[in-house]
């Protein structure tokens, strides 16, 4: 019971996000990436995770947040998905927090539509709001360019 309410937190554009701790494989610092030409904009590149090739998704771009400033390097949060590991790029990694289920609330209707697809709910923490990220949708990237659809 308690396990489902442990979240690994991270920040993006001063927002606090959380991912259920069990879905996280590991957290590694920024690595040099190989960009993928023609890929959807949210795919930041490929990293070599001990011999396994992992797609890194820029969460800022995925969540339609403004692009990261040049000087700070993002951190890789490697999550497990049914199709293998995927890296989510976040601004800064935070603590693992245990939250009280009573503090949960659905995301407000007024939330931006892209964000609403990805945020399953909000925990009202004492000093901040914790947005729960839906990992399965976050790692799904639609090919948005028409050329790709026709190719």
């Amino acid at each position, binding site marked *: 019971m308690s396990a489902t309410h442990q979240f690994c937190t991270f920040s993006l554009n001063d927002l606090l996000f959380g991912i259920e701790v069990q879905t996280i494989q590991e957290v590694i610092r920024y690595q040099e990436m190989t960009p993928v030409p023609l890929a959807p904009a949210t795919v930041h590149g490929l*990293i070599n995770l001990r011999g396994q090739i992992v*797609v890194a998704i820029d969460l800022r771009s995925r969540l339609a947040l403004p692009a990261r400033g040049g000087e700070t390097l993002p951190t890789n949060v490697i999550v497990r998905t049914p*199709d293998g590991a995927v890296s989510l790029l976040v601004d800064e990694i935070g603590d693992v927090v245990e939250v009280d289920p009573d503090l949960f609330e659905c995301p407000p209707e007024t939330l931006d*539509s892209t964000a609403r697809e990805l945020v399953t709910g909000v925990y009202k923490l004492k000093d901040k709001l914790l947005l729960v990220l839906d990992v399965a949708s976050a790692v799904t990237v639609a*090919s948005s360019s*028409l*050329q*790709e659809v*026709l190719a």
Partner: protein
Amino acid sequence: MPDTLPDDLQLQLITDLLIESFEGLDNFDHQLLALEKGACGAETLNVIFRVIHTIKGTAGCIGLGRIEATAHVGESLLSLLRDGKIQTNTEIISALLALSDALRGMLRNIESTGSEGDADHSILLARLQTLQVQPAAPSASEQDAAPAVAPEPDGFGLFEETPISATPVLPDRPDATPAVQPSAPNGQAPAVSESAIRIDVAQLDKLMNLVGELVLARNQVLQNVAQPDPTALLAASQRLNLITTELQGSVMKTRMQPIGNVWAKFPRVVRDLAQELGKKIALVMEGQETELDRTIIEAIKDPLTHIVRNAIDHGLELPDVRLAAGKPAEGRLVLRAFHEGGQVNIEFIDDGQGINLERVKAKAVQRSLLTADQAARLSEREVLNLIFLPGFSTAETVTNLSGRGVGMDVVKTNIEKIGGSVDIQSRAGLGVTLRIRIPLTLAIIPALIVTSGGQRFAIPQVNLLELVRLEGDARQKIETLYNAPVYRLRGKLLPLVNLNHHLRLTSPGSDEAISIVVLQADGRQFGLVVDAINDAEEIVVKPLGKQLKSLACFAGATIMGDGRVALILDVLGVAQRASVVTEARDRASADETQAQDKRDERQTLLLFEAGRGRQLALPLSLVARLEELPATAVEFSGDQEVVQYRGQIMPLLRVARFLGGIACADTELPAPELLQVVVHSAHGRSVGLVVSTISDIVNERLTVQRSSAGKGILASAVIQQRVTDLLDLESLIRAGDPAFFEHGSN
């Protein structure tokens, strides 16, 4: 009983039994068929006898009573055959084959459920017993002896209960097949027999030796780290290099299996099918020793079986039809495998009736896979390729063998999944040749590393023909035809494709030389212009994540010596992107199949009209919503028409106005009170396309007829008998709302 004995030893015994028995039974079938053809006598029979005897013995030890009892009956019959007391005939062979099926069925049941299952084999057993008495006199005593020898666990009182005289000689298949089918595991866990592999002991010793050497080489390198000595390090790394190469080769070799392993079951398949259909077929197999990687063998097993079945069912005719056509009554099916250019070719050649093109067309139209018009325009090759479409089957009647329309498309997909290609040629009345080309292995491939736009890419050597470097004045030799650069390579025009351009990379720009990699895709040559050519290397192929699967330009990725990731170019994908392959569509090239099919995949399209009577289409995946907005809701921001939409200011683009030309006329129409708006969203922003009517949503196989028919149009196609333009959404948005894309770029 076995299912109540979970202890490890028992499990191990059962696993061994399964592996051994499956192998044995394959051999059993094989030898029986040889026997039927009249090949060698005594030794063959001995082999057959031993297989059944071993199964009986082992099963008895572990307490598998039913298998033991079933095998026993077969053994009795075989011992009579071996001793020459009765002679083999088709009936006996059929019965013994049915026995092998029954045993296999029970073994499979053990594999999947742990028990022998409760399939009823009494009819088969009775039949086997009947056959023992048939030749009368000498076997009578054996017949009496048999029940006495038979162990009868759990009251498996088969022998007394089945009166021999009451059992008529039954038709071959119906009794055996149903008993087997329900117990066949349906692709859940990998079957026991597929999870194990036999390796030559010498091979294993060699591997061990190499690993030993590898350890020594490692020690040398490690020592060198402590006390650096450049010459020693050089020697050590050379050794390491050699050992690794050899180790790689040896490990690969353990994974190689002759294709004959897959083919082994075909004689049986052919015999059974031929008997059932009343056809006479000679199966010829050439190149059985051709080796292939295990994973590939597994992947092609089912497709190959399907092709063989198809050839027998649809291709080869009945004996009298053949005679009437002036061909020998016996049809020939030739399987041939051989290595060629780092790939394995497998050919299926039959001398049957060939594929009836008219019927294929008619069928395709009937199944509404395409319209009659389209069908009439197809070339012979394109018609042949129709049989690879899902849901296609020309068989007039659906038999249990083929004709369910799930066949050839699955064959093609499976072969293409492992990087192979399928090609079919048919000559009316003379037969069909189906050729499959597959790579030897999937894991490690030789590749050329190139640099373009500051990134490294790997190009598989399979596609590589040659390298051309133009320096100094030679650079002028590149000519252009309507913006399409070409190079005269030994008198022939080689279309050039600039990798930077097509991958939207920015090149640092080197003026010194132009490097051209001459590649072959789909039987067509083209030159890929890259910034630099680095080196040839063996690379380990790793798959790309699901997010990138849609990128046809990349076949995968690999990790370079420095630990960084490099993308592997899919030459065919690049060629398609650069339209090298599309250009020459009309030429009947032998390998056009692949390109064709990719273009022709079904798409869900939104059809709408903009302006007067002009049908446009947009892939539904790009449409977020369809809205009807009152004309009064339109406001202006600057000179851009906008509406308030879901808390955002959404710009409106009038499609007709953008496309210009005759369609511009929409301004003359009375302004509608309700605007039909197609909403496209990306990166959290939306844009509304104002159209005049929304017509339909269709799931169409898109056959592009003209590419780029004008401004804002990607291509044109015929959809629902109307010429339909595919809207170039990107350029439309760029023209109407340039800020739209800035946001999402990285």
